[in-house]
């Protein structure tokens, strides 16, 4: 096989942030006229690598060669001048400027002083139109960018990125907000650019898209280089295993508790029928029984978090009936969910979990107080007692329960948010990635806590990107893929089975 010309080669790239080694010894090779996928789980170091290539961060060690010459991008603009352009997840067109103004921004053609100087707007429009035409994009350059659909904005952003004669184009999650048709339009553009000899780096969490458009892939795990593979030679099984770092043959023994008494006659604590939301979750049924841990597995973007948010009424569902203990329930606001005995630990602790300025005590008391309403007030003494007990029970490390929660470490903040819900004695507790970003010991304690909860009769919906955790604590595992139910596994299922369901659509 003839190896196409190498455009960019990054070698032995390392970068540390306070407390984390984001990358150590990463490698990446991009070739002209190829689409290359960069794969890895959250925290694998994909973003860091991209930011190093585009000059946002400087690497601690390693070298980057562009067309055989050593380069050190100092800023995104410098990277662009070198020929490395990037398009990020959300399109970055300025909504109040026209498409042409957006495309030429920063490099507007000037009129000669004989014609009065200043920007030549006519030439701006002509250049933009020419660029779009050469890429086969049919778009009026005079209209404002803001009202355009996301997909067209995305196409225009890509056009802008390559307008600087980019040799390397980095696409970071370009499809995450596009629907299937729009993805195809973007892919058509990517293929055209590929055929013009641009080296393209494509980052996505959608495995099917990787196999559709990419020629090769580089896999990172925990900041380390796992390998470079031709897409045709590595099936989804191999890919998922390489990403999560586990041989599919290895099985973990389930340490789950005995199933709670499975009296078939008692209705499930929580049941949702035909639950859906456009663009986020395809219609599905979910049931949770008393004392059961239901694991939710799937890759990012599979609909895990979306399902949880719909169950807690954080997002409005398009369709779906939810019943509690077999009785239809009104569930239109998180406050309704709270009244019905549901609890929800969100995935994004900083943004939607903690209230950083408030004390640990107030953060813990908040949900219980919200359920009791305005009139019945927990006195400070009562709050202290509840918070003190939970802080001790969960082993939350804080100098005092009056310390602002923002000063605690991530793991302890997470425990405090769980304590917030434990204080309400929930019948159903939804935990979205509760173990993310916390250390191994804290993870272990948390898992034990979850099992204790279930033993006490609480139904737990446990969401985690780490399949081994899901397998270890769950009585039942619901596997999601592409916002759809891919299948359900009984207690004791091993990781292989989960991976198989995740990867089922791409069996080689």
């Amino acid at each position, binding site marked *: 096989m003839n190896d196409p010309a190498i455009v960019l080669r990054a070698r032995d790239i390392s970068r540390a942030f306070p407390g984390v080694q984001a990358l150590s010894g990463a490698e990446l090779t991009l070739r002209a006229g190829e689409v290359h996928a960069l794969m890895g789980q959250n925290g694998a170091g994909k973003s860091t690598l991209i930011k190093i290539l585009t000059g946002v961060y400087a690497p601690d060690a390693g070298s980057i060669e562009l067309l055989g010459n050593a380069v050190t991008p100092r800023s995104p603009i410098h990277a662009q001048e070198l020929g490395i352009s990037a398009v990020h997840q959300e399109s970055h067109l300025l909504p109040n400027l026209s498409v042409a103004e957006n495309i030429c921004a920063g490099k507007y053609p000037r009129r000669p002083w004989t014609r009065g100087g200043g920007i030549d707007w006519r030439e701006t429009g002509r250049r933009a139109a020419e660029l779009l035409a050469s890429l086969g994009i049919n778009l009026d350059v005079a209209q404002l960018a803001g009202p355009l659909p996301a997909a067209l904005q995305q196409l225009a952003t890509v056009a802008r990125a390559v307008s600087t004669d980019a040799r390397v184009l980095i696409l970071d999650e370009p499809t995450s907000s596009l629907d299937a048709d729009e993805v195809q339009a973007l892919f058509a553009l990517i293929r055209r650019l590929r055929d013009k000899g641009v080296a393209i780096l494509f980052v996505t969490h959608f495995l099917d898209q990787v196999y559709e458009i990419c020629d090769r892939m580089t896999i990172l795990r925990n900041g380390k280089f796992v390998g470079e593979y031709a897409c045709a030679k590595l099936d989804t099984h191999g890919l998922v295993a390489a990403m999560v770092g586990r041989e599919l043959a290895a099985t973990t023994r389930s340490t789950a508790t005995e199933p709670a008494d499975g009296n078939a006659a008692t209705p499930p604590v929580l049941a949702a029928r035909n639950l859906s939301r456009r663009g986020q979750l395809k219609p599905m049924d979910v049931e949770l029984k008393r004392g059961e841990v239901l694991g939710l597995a799937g890759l990012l973007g599979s609909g895990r978090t979306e399902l949880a948010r719909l169950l807690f009424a954080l997002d409005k569902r398009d369709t779906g009936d939810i019943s509690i203990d077999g009785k239809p329930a009104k569930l239109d606001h998180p406050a309704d969910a*709270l009244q019905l005995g549901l609890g929800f630990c969100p995935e994004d602790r900083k943004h939607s*979990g903690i*209230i950083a300025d*408030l004390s640990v005590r107030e953060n813990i008391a908040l949900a219980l*107080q*919200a359920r009791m309403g305005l009139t*019945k007030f927990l006195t400070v003494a009562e709050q202290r007692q509840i918070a003190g007990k939970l802080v001790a029970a969960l082993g939350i490390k804080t100098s005092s329960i009056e310390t602002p929660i923002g000063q605690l470490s991530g793991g302890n903040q997470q425990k405090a948010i769980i304590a917030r819900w434990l204080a309400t004695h929930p019948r159903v507790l939804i935990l979205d990635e509760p173990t993310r970003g916390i250390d191994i010991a804290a993870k272990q304690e948390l898992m034990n806590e979850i099992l204790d909860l279930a033993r006490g009769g609480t139904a737990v919906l446990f969401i985690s990107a780490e399949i081994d955790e899901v397998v270890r604590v769950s009585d039942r595992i619901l596997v999601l893929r592409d916002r759809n139910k891919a299948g359900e596994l009984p207690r004791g299922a091993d990781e292989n089975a989960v991976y198989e369901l995740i990867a089922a659509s791409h069996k080689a």
Partner: protein
Amino acid sequence: MKRLTQHMLFWPAIALALLLVASSLFNPSFLALTWRDGHLYGSVVDILNRAAPLMVVSLGMTLVIAVRGLDISVGAVVAISAAVVALMIGGSFSATGTVQSAHPLWVALTTALAVAAACGLWNGLLVVKAGMQPIVATLILMVAGRGIAQLLTGGQIITVYYPPFFALGNGYLIGLPVALWIAGSLWLALHLVMSRTALGLFVRSIGGNPEAARVAGVRSAAITLCVYTFCGLAAGVAGLIVSSNVKSADANNAGQLLELDAILAVTLGGTALTGGRFTLAGTVIGALIIQTLTSMIYSLGVPPEVNLVVKATLVFAVMLLQSAEFRQLVARAARGSTT
């Protein structure tokens, strides 16, 4: 000592104390209090009395700012409330020479307050339901409200002749101005509601992190709506005091620029403009600082044309005193010069 200097009210209180000391240096009789005709007289009582409307408005503003909002329509609402109460009382001389009110006093007062609360509710709906930026949403009523007040008064200054109404802005109760009692009881009531019910916790949660408060099941929309309504109501109360004090309703000038003074009072008091951290007592001190400044400038005999410049300079100095960054800078400079 460290605990004392870190208290939220420490620097606002120091600023107020310094101003009072400065005032008494310029005017030796400034702190003097005398008892005459059954009530207290003195510059300090005068400041407290005059600061009352600003205190009332600023207390409402404090809560709005605490939930990450802003209400710049309070000045206009003061004018509306003043216009409504003046119109409803009307007042004409009867044949016997006594003054009659067109409507009973309590009906007039309640109507004015209800209209003011409705104004606040309108602001709240624009912010919560229509999702407008608070400054834009309340800008609408700030502009339109003064127009409405002028429409009500027909562009005239309406004079009130009905004496019982004058008690609000000019009367005394147990030796102290009625207006001060009103502001004081409003502060006490709010303080109790915030510390003895869950509302304080909810308000601080919403201001601290609205999304997290929603996820925790706090009904943020309803609470925010109530807070705006209350802010309108407080502005209505201030409107009653103001119109009672001047015995008339002037739609053009009543509450003019009061919104800015109120925001300033809240800030001077130590409430974070970013929401979350708020202090009602601090706001009261902030309002007193502003009124003390104003009185000081008058008593100094500053010519009217430079009045605003002097006031701005003093506000600037007070703000510097309260800025932790500035104090650190000074401390570092002082340490540098001694070594």
